[in-house]
């Protein structure tokens, strides 16, 4: 086990993010018009409470982060050697799927996503992945459009199904 450093940058960043989010909510709440009805509690009070709560949690966690790190974090050895390439490849799959699904259609977008995620998990068998992807994407497409009546973009297969 490596000794935990005094200040944890990642934990501190998340804590500051929570404080920022809380402050943002408090700031935005002021833009909500308060209905001044008779003894009526309007739409502002609850957001204020939540904003304050978030900021307080961020403050406590931030203090923990600079005083020996967050409390009771389990030690996972895997966390010391992150595989950022896997992270990048899978992220690319999800983002590309979002970008192309409108015009390339559900089937092609899903095949691309499937192959990239499998690659991200270290698969060395692109042919197996591609064949599985095609079968799964077409099957899911047919079940959901024909069977459940969902409307999914067809892309170039317009008129085929």
């Amino acid at each position, binding site marked *: 086990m490596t000794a935990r450093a005094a200040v944890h940058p*990642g*934990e501190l960043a*998340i804590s500051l993010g*929570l404080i920022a*989010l*809380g402050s943002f*909510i408090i700031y*935005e709440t002021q833009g*909500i018009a308060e209905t001044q009805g008779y*003894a*009526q*509690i*309007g*739409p502002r009070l*609850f*957001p204020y409470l*939540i904003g304050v*709560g*978030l900021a307080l*949690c961020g403050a*406590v966690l931030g203090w*923990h982060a600079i005083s020996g790190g*967050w*409390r*009771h*974090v*389990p030690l996972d050895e*895997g*966390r010391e*050697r*992150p*595989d*950022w390439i*896997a*992270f990048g490849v*899978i*992220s690319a799959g*999800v983002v590309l*799927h*979002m*970008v192309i*699904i*409108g015009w390339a259609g*559900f089937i092609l977008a*899903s095949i691309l*996503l*499937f192959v990239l*995620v*499998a690659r*991200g*998990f270290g*698969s060395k068998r692109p042919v197996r*992945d591609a064949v*599985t*992807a095609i079968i*799964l994407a077409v099957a*899911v497409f047919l079940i*959901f459009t024909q069977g459940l009546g*969902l409307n*999914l973009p067809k892309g170039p297969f317009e008129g085929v199904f």
Partner: protein
Amino acid sequence: METFSALLAGFAVALTPVNLVWGFVGVTLGTAIGVLPGVGPALTIALLLPATAKVDPTGALIMFAGIYYGAMFGGSTTSILLNTPGESATIVTAMEGNLMAKRGRAGPALATSAIGSFIAGTIATILLTVMAPIVVDFALKFGPAEYFAVMVLAFTTVSAVLGASAARGLASLFFGLAIGLIGLDSQTGQARFTLGIPELLDGIDVVVVAVGLFAVGETLYIATYFNREADKLEKMKGSIWMTKSDWKRSWMPWLRGTALGFPFGTIPAGGAEIPTFLSYAIEKKLTKHPDEFGKGAIEGVAGPEAANNASATGTLVPLLTLGLPTTATAAIILAAFQQWGLQPGPLLFETQPLLIWGLIASMYTGNVILLILNLPLVGIWVKLLQIPRPLLYAGILIFATLGAYGLRNSWFDLLLLYLVGLIGFLMRRYDIPVAPVLVGMILGPLAEQQFRRALAISQGDLTIFVRQPISATVLAITALVLFGPPIWRRLSARKARRTG
């Protein structure tokens, strides 16, 4: 007697062919996703929500409940045969169960967990049947102030009591509450936190959040940090049946596990992890074979497995009678009720008795089906474990993106899905629990409603929450569970310093 006739009427609903099929599909799917690592009941039910919006609520809810407790059965199979638990509530089973499998006793380990789950599930369903009307009678006295108080208690226990750190749990809860704020205010119709984006006027869909956290976030996390070592699948060797001594050593742990699990599910302290750990500790103390613990003792499988099943059924007590979800899956089931305009709570027992009692009755039959599915047919489920990890997670993401996109055919939901996935990744990495996000997001708007109603009745007087005896008591308990443990720790630390 009234309960009995209500339950009989429920059986008339649950035993119609169509509802039997729903139940069968639910428990089968539940077992399958319980077996598969990376897919849990919360994710599965969330993905099925849009597809079931137009079907009969009774049948769909019978299926969802089946997925929930079916996953507890299936999860034990993975924990025993693989060194990674299928569900978080089966971590303890993975310890002794996997060791039993390594010694060639996979069969009895699977048998004791399936039979234990069946016994626990059935006893817990009987307890649910008996308790629900009592809680409902009590809850009919609740006004908005009381409802708000029990919701605050649920928020506190779900986020601050469970898990390693109260600060991280509460941060997660407040984040969920903040997501719940987005959209039109239910009472005045004003847009809140929509940032001028029209897609946000309806709020962020619970499907996007659940799927983002549990599918996208989890996939990114596993791929980034835990994809180096391959899983080792233990072979099913020898007889599946338990010997006489196995039975003798199992039946008391089953009953003790049930007795631990059910109350833990019932009180709004959610989660099946704590009772399984407690059950393990107790069995380790009471066993006549202490030498076997740590090498694969059957008591260490039987007790925790019964506990996690009883607790899953137990969580349905606060969910059905008070509308209080105390686990991520229960929160999604609450969202399912809402999509048909139903609000679980005492009134639902009066307005929809056939739905509620049909659902409860279906759990008796569901447990029987699960016993058959998981004991003689266990070999089929083991095959699911042979799916290579890359294909499994790629498939999960196909369904995840389909679920988010299918909501309204908008790429915007896919963007939200990825962003929530990134947040889920960070939460997993930094050990922030995700269940409070879902509970906060789904229960938050209801809590705000009750809060504002209570204050409208009291004409803006905040003391209403402490002047009503029930809500004052509940809030006092909340303060106790929130501030009690740290104060007690500090006091005992001081004491230790003085004596030491």
